[in-house]
C-alpha cells in the first residue's frame, strides 16, 4: 500500500495532510472498528434485498459485496446508514455510492483476477475495496487530499494491499500504470476525458457516469476495439457532484 503525492505541493499541504491523517486515524472514520455478526447479517440482507433483487447475478461480485465491510467506509456516527439502500455522505461534499450502484458498476466492468483496474474518484475507498476483491491491482485517484490520506489509512487498516492510491486530478488517469483493462469512474464528469480513452486497453471497458451536477447522470459503458470507440447507455443515476473536471 503506498500513497503518491504531487511534488509541487509544499509544506502547507503536508501539514494539512498530517492533520487530516490524524483525523482519519482518531476522528472521522472507525478504522479501529471490526466486522461483527450483526454487520455480516446486514450485509447479507443488503446483497439479497438491494442487489440480487435488482438483477445483479455475477457470483464474484456478490461475494465481494458480502465480504467488504461497508460500515468501515462511512464516517463515525453514520454506520447505521451503511447498509441502507442509498448513498451516504462522507464529508468534503462526497458520498459513498448506493450499494446497488457499486455492485452494478462492478458487474458491468467484468473484472477478472489478472486485471489491472483504474478507479477515478476514490472517495472513502469502498468501490476500490470491492474491485480489489476481484482484480490483481487497483489504482485509484482522488483529488481531495484529505480524503486521499484518510482512505489510504483506512484501506491499510482493512488489509488491502493491492490498492494504490494517488492524490491527483483523475481527468488525466494514471499514465505510468496504463493501459488498464477496466476503468471505473465514480465521479460524475461533464464529458468522457480523452486521456482515459487513451489509457484504456484495446478490448477494455470503461464505466463512467456522465452528466451535470444536480441533474440526472447516465452510467455509460465505453468499449474500445482498435480505433473504434463505442458507447452504451446503461442506467440513469445520481452521484454527488464531485470536484473535478
Amino acid at each position, binding site marked *: 500500500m503506498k500513497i503518491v503525492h504531487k511534488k509541487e505541493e509544499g509544506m502547507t499541504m503536508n501539514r494539512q495532510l498530517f492533520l487530516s491523517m490524524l483525523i482519519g486515524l482518531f476522528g472521522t472514520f472507525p478504522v479501529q472498528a471490526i466486522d461483527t455478526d450483526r454487520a455480516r447479517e446486514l450485509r447479507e440482507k443488503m446483497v439479497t434485498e438491494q442487489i440480487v433483487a435488482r438483477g445483479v447475478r455475477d457470483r464474484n461480485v456478490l461475494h465481494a459485496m458480502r465480504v467488504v465491510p461497508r460500515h468501515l467506509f462511512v464516517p463515525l456516527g453514520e454506520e447505521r446508514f451503511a447498509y441502507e439502500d442509498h448513498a451516504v455522505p462522507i464529508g468534503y461534499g462526497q458520498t459513498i455510492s448506493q450499494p446497488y450502484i457499486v455492485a452494478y458498476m462492478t458487474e458491468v466492468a467484468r473484472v477478472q483476477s489478472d486485471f489491472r483496474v483504474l478507479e477515478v474518484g476514490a472517495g472513502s475507498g469502498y468501490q476500490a475495496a470491492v474491485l480489489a476483491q476481484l482484480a490483481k491491482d487497483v489504482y485509484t485517484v482522488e483529488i481531495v487530499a484529505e480524503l486521499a490520506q484518510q482512505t489510504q489509512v483506512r484501506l491499510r487498516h482493512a488489509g488491502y494491499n493491492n490498492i494504490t492510491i494517488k492524490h491527483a486530478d483523475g481527468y488525466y488517469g494514471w499514465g505510468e500504470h496504463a493501459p488498464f483493462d477496466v476503468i471505473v469512474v465514480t465521479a460524475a464528469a461533464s464529458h468522457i476525458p480523452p486521456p482515459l*480513452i487513451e489509457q484504456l486497453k484495446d478490448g477494455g471497458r470503461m464505466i463512467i457516469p456522465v452528466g451535470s*451536477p444536480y441533474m440526472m447522470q447516465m452510467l*455509460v459503458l465505453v468499449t474500445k476495439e482498435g480505433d473504434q*470507440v463505442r458507447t452504451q447507455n446503461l442506467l440513469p443515476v445520481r452521484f454527488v457532484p464531485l470536484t473535478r473536471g
Partner: protein
Amino acid sequence: MRLLAVDIALFLSSLALIALQIVLMQALAQAQGHHFAYAVISLAMLGFGSSGAVLALARDKLLPRADKVSQLCLMFAAASCLLALPLALQAAALTDLSLLFIDARSWWPLIASATLVFLPFFSGALFLGLIFMRDTESIGQRYAVNLLGSAVGAGVALLLLFYFTPIQAIAICAAAFALAAWLLWHSWLSVILLLGVLVSVMFITDIKPSSYKAISYALQLPQAQVVSDIPHPVGRIQIVQSPALRYGQGLSLQFRGTLPAAPHIYRNGDAYGVLLPDATVLNESVQALPLELAIPSRALVLHAGGAAVAHLLSHNAVQVDVVEPHPVVARWLRAQYRDDRLTVIVREGRAYLSAPLEHYDLIVLPPQGSFGGGVGLQALQEDYLLTRESFRVLWDVLHEDGLLSFSVYLDQPPRQSLKLLALVVDTLHAVGVSDLSGHIAAIRSWDMLSVVVSKRPMNDVAREKLAAFSQTKGFDRLWAPGEGVVLTDHFHVMEDDLLTTGFTALLTANDTSVFYDDYLFDVRAPYDTKPYFHQFLRWDRLQEVKQYFASSTLAFIEMGSVLVVLTGIALTGAAIILILAPLAWLNWPPGRRLAILCYFASIGLGFMFLEILWIQHFTLFWGHSLYSAAGVVAALLCGMGAGSILSIRLRTSHKTVTLILGSIVIMIILSLFLAPIFFTAGLVWPESLKWISGLMLLTFPAFFLGMPFPLALRVLNQAYPQQVPWAWGINGCFSVIAAPLAVFLVMQGGFHMVGWAAILAYALAILAFQSIGR
C-alpha cells in the same frame, strides 16, 4: 411633526419589505435556484397574515403600547435581516432537493430557511398592522404611504442589485428598518444596528452557494479562480478559469487531442456559457454539423454565451451577429472575440427576431438541456424564445436557402429534443411544407443531438456530406434528409428507441396528435401563453412515469413542478396554522361571517392571481422575470396607493363597490384579449418606451385594485369592528395560498386559466359584498 416621523418610518419599512422580496428572489436564485422565487412572495404574505393574527389576539395588550412595540418590531426586522437572512440563504444552499424525497432530515434546512425568511416580514408587517390599527381615522393616508413606499421599494431593489451583492442589499434593507426605528425613537440600539449594517456591507459580501451549483463544482477544480464577478439584477455574472475547466460537449470519441482550458461564464452560479480561445476543437463535435453542410456568409447566434460564436468566427468570411440579452456577457463577448466580422446586440432573442437588422443564412439556437435530462428545476422558467410564435418569426428571418441549427443534450426519456423538433414540425406545417423529411438532418454523439433544418429541401450533396461527417467522427445519423433514421453504424447504443420513434412519428405521421397523446411526457410545442418549454410532466400519466423509472423517483425528472405542489401544500398548512388557527382561539364572532370569508378570500386570491399572471406576462415584454417582478409590483402598488387615497373620499355604498369590482373584472377580461396584441406590437419598441408604456398600463387597473380592501375594512370598522382581524387574516391567508396556486394554474392551463380564475374571484367578491354592506 410626530405624524411625519410615523409616515417616514412607514414609508421606509414598506420600501424595505418590498425591496427585500425582490432581493431575496435574486439571493435565493444565487444560493439555490430560481425555483424558490415565488415561495418568497408567499412567505412575505405569510408574514403579513400571521402578524394580523397576532394583532387580533393581542390587540388589547399591544395597542396601549403601540409606540414601544412598533419600535421593537422595526429593530427586530433590522436584526433579522442582518442575522437571520444570511443564515436562511445558507440553509437554502445546503438543502439537497433530491434528498427531500429520500431522507426526511433533508427537510430541516429548507424549513429552517423558510422560517428565517419569514421573520423580517412578520416583524415588519406587525409594525405596519399596529400603525394601521392605531391610526384608524387616517387609515387611507397610512395605507397610501405604505403602498407608495412599497412601490418605490421595487425600484430601489433593482438599483441595489446593480451595485451590490444580494447579501449586501439585504443589509441595506436592514438599514431602512433601523432608520425607521430611529425616527420613532432615538435609541442607541438603532444606532448599533446601523453600525451593524455598515460592518455587514463591508465584510459579509457573499454566501456559499449550493454545492450542486455549477460554479461550486468549477471552483473546486485545481487552481480555479474567479477572474470577474459583476452583480446585475438579471443575474450576477462570474467568470471562472482553471486549467481543468474544459469544454468538450458533443465531442467525438475518435478525438485523441487535448481539450483546451476555457474560462466558463456563470449566471447566478449556473452554467451560462464559455469563452473559447480556440474553437477548432468544435470541428470534432456534433455542433459542427451546420458548418459541414454549408458555410454561411451571415450567421445569427441567439443567446449564444460564447461557444458557437467562437466556432463561427474560426471560419473565414462568416459575418456573425450575436444576440445576447445579458449586458455583462455581451461586454465579455466583445472583449474576447475582437473581430470586425462580429456584431454583438444586447437584446432578448425574441425581441430581436421581431425587428432584425438582417436576414441570415444560418441561425443558431443556444444548446438546450443537460446530458441524461435535467431534474426539472427549470420547469418554472419562462422561455419566450422557444415558443410557436417565436419560431414563426424566426423562420421569416432566414434566407430562402437558410439553415436553422440547434443542439440539445440527450435526455432519457427524450423530452427536450422532441419538444424542439415539435416546434420545428409546427413551423414547417404552418408555412405549408407537407413533406418534412427532406428538410431535416440530425446526428448524435453519445451525449448530444444536433439538428439542422433547411428552408428548402436538402439535396444529395447534403446527404453525402452528412454521411461522411458522421462516419469519420463516429456519430450516428439519427435523421438523413429524405431517408429518415439511418443507424447503420450504431456507435452509440441508447437505452431504448424512443428518440428514433419520436423523430419518425413527428416527421412522417399525418396526424402528430396521436403521438403527442400517447407519449409519456408533454412534448407539444409551447405557446406564448404557456411559455414553459422545460415543463414536461403530465399529471394524467404519473403512474406510467413512475413505472417507467422503476426504482428511481419522479422527483428526479420534474422537480420544479413537484416543488410547486409541495410548497403550495406546505404554505397552505403554515397559513392555516399561523393565521387562521390563532384567530380561531378568539372565536369568530357572528356577523356576516360567510360573506366576510368569501369577500376577503376572493380579493386576496384575485389580486395575487393578477400579480403572478402579470409578472409572468411582462417577462416577455421587459426581458427578465426579476425586471418584471419589480416593474409589476411597483406599478401595482403605486396605482393601489393612489386608489386607496381616493377610496377615503368614496362612499361605501353597494353601488360604489360593485362599480369598482365590476370595472376590475372588465379590465381583466380586456387584458386577456388585448395584452398579446400590445406585446406583439411593443416588443420592438425602445426599452424606455417599453417601461413607460408597461408601467402606465399596469397602473390603471392597479388604481381600482387598491380600493376594495380599504373600502370593505371601513364598512367592517363601522358595522362589525370585531371582524377586522378576521378580515385581515383571511385576506393574508388566501394571499399566501394564491402565489403557488397561480403558478400551478399557469403551468397547467396557461395565462388564460389564471386570468379567468382572477375574474371569478372578483365576481365572487361582488356577490359577497352585497351581504357585508347590507
